């Protein structure tokens, strides 16, 4: 093929990307209880009132709000963030349903249909897969499956709102203990206006028999989603937690500012996996979700372990650094990430590993894949405090570029205040080579299949960390996200 033909072919394929549809872009027609746009104290009081919250929680929100008002939006990330009009956002929208849902029959059929379309058939989940699901639709949790089975073990897995009502002491003890309200701009905003989310408590010595799963969905227009997840794992407990997310295709941008807090006590292990597939915007970069998320785990007790695995393919802008504070001696933190950006998507993502306890260990494996006109950055901090004797970190940050119009960047920060610690960082940047493509095509694969195979191979180390069903979904998602992006 001549150079000109090749160029034409690339353009053709790039055009095809444009036409490849975001599968989850539909809107569900349900009656919603939506409050007026705008951010002020009254709105916060209204949210708190709608959720029938105790005074201390309202105070928590208002305190966060006042702190938020004095904070500037951070601009240090390698992102072009258009101005966000906080007064033009709806901070609470809930599908109108009967208050107490005893069974799935009472959930709005439109809603159930939505979750079925998303591949989250709650009923089947309940019966077959052994995965307990909490589904959050716009601002409220719709239905949590599998609760009975979990209750037998003493595991609490419910919507955040339910937890506030039924387990206020647990929520009050841990809320904000890992991510304080004034941690950062978006965390402060979340702390003021968060509407729902998931709460999970694993008692001492209990290993969760099923994987717990939360599914987030933004549906209503002009609505922000500010959910909160709080996971508390008592001594020697274990839980594997999955999170998925999608949103309708809309021309305007929507804000998603979530917080995930994890507390792992002595000998506890928490594995948190995310497949993030928020609407990424169209081929010109119009629309899409702003995904500004604070995720942090506190490995509080000795020998505790927190592991983050994320596959990030969606959102128009991603600002996200799942982190571990390794406080307990011998505690372990892990971060495995695949971040894909295509068209005009931007991602600035990575991890922080703060070593405080002795003999603490952390691993960071980050695989960035950039295509189209996108910008994909890894940003990470490894900090060894003076007390972190024999702390150990290994970081590997790889970038793969498809085409010549995208960017890949790596910003690793290493702060060591301890002579006995060892910090290792490896980074590579590569392109899919013409020779690799030719080799695959010579064996009978077309160009798309070749790219899929190579990209999946590149990301395999991370995909392998995902629970089985999730890994299969993630692989498909990688293929869809990169459809037509030729190297």
């Amino acid at each position: 093929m001549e150079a000109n033909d090749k160029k034409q072919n690339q353009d053709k394929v790039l055009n095809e990307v444009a036409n490849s549809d975001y599968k989850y872009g539909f809107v569900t027609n349900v009656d919603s209880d939506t409050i007026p746009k705008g951010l002020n104290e009254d709105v916060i009081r209204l949210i708190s009132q709608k959720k029938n919250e105790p005074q201390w929680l309202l105070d928590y929100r208002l305190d966060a709000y006042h702190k938020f008002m004095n904070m500037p939006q951070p601009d240090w990330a390698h992102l072009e963030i258009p101005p966000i009009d906080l007064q033009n956002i709806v901070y609470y929208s809930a599908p109108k349903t009967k208050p107490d849902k005893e069974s799935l029959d009472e959930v709005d059929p439109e809603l159930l249909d939505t979750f079925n379309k998303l591949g989250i058939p709650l009923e089947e989940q309940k019966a077959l897969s052994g995965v307990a699901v909490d589904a959050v639709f716009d601002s409220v949790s719709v239905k949590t499956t599998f609760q009975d089975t979990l209750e037998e073990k003493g595991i609490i897995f419910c919507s955040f709102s339910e937890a506030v009502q039924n387990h206020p002491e647990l929520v009050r003890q841990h809320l904000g203990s890992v991510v304080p309200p004034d941690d950062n701009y978006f965390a402060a905003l979340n702390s003021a206006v968060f509407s729902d989310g998931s709460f999970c408590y694993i008692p001492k010595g209990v290993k969760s028999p099923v994987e717990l799963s939360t599914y987030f969905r933004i549906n209503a227009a002009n609505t922000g989603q500010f959910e909160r997840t709080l996971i508390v794992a008592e001594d020697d407990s274990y839980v594997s937690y999955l999170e998925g997310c999608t949103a309708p295709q809309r021309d305007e941008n929507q804000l998603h500012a979530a917080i995930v807090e994890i507390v792992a006590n002595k000998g506890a292990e928490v594995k948190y996996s995310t497949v993030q597939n928020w609407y990424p915007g169209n081929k010109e970069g119009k629309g899409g979700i702003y995904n500004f998320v604070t995720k942090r785990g506190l490995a509080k007790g000795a020998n505790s372990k927190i592991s983050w695995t994320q596959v990030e393919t969606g959102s128009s802008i991603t600002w996200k650094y799942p982190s571990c504070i390794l406080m307990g001696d011998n505690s372990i933190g892990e971060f495995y990430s695949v971040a894909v950006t295509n068209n005009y998507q931007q991602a600035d993502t990575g991890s922080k590993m703060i070593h405080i306890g002795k003999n603490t260990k952390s691993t960071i494996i980050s695989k960035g894949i950039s295509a189209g006109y996108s910008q994909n950055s890894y940003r990470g901090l490894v900090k060894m405090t003076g007390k972190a004797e024999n702390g150990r970190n290994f970081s590997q940050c790889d970038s793969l570029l498809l085409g010549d119009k995208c960017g890949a960047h790596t910003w690793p920060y290493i702060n060591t205040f301890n002579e006995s610690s060892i910090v290792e960082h490896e980074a590579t940047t590569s392109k899919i080579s013409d020779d690799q493509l030719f080799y695959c095509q010579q064996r009978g694969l077309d160009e798309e299949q070749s790219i899929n195979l190579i990209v999946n191979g590149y990301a395999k180390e991370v995909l392998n960390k995902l629970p089985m069903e999730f890994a299969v979904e993630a692989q498909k998602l990688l293929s869809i996200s990169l459809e037509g992006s030729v190297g």
Partner: protein
Amino acid sequence: MLKIKDLVVTVEGKTILNGLNLEVKPGEVHAIMGPNGSGKSTLANVISGKDGYEVVSGSITYQGKDIMEMDVEERAREGIFMGFQYPVEIPGVSMNNFMRTAIDEIRKYKNQEPFTAAQFLKFMKDKKELVGLHDSLAGRSVNEGFSGGEKKKNEIFQMAMLEPKLSILDETDSGLDIDALKIVANGVNTLKSDDNATVVITHYQRLLDYIIPDYVHVLYDGKIVKSGDKTLAYELEEKGYEWLKD
């Protein structure tokens, strides 16, 4: 099966093949020999459809079809196989997965039912035995960390798996010790049938001790300057290429 007529090929404006003619029929083994830079690899790449080569004039027909109209993968699915001189590594992609994907595609192209997992494993096991490939290689990522010899054996294994009609082996013997050379040659000989053909590109006579060609061609300055039977290879070994220059 393969007919090349008056083929002129340039790379970045430089003429590499300059009026090459070649005809290969089913059941035949052809050896193409020639010094470095004579255009051997270019010939292999043009037949399989690699980018960056401009066919200025002449034609290549394969099974009666003009292959210049066909994409790389279409040629592959039609049964053209290239054994690479430098097989690339594809990290994270297991040989099993790679072959499974390739064979699925080829079977789909031919309107054949896909293999079941069990059928595929059996098929692969048989082919591994046929070419003497260790199990461990097939479980590893494509060519990753393979020694030079392992890479070449892996090419022959893929050739066995894909059951091509026309195989072009580009310097498959380069960098091989005598044992590996025998394994490669044995693979080629075992896979030989009345329906398929092999073109072996080499610049040593050594491989031809193990693979007996029906024809030997000398490629020099972009064209075939002499053809003969296997004795031509011995003659070249003795006299070098200089005597053919004029």
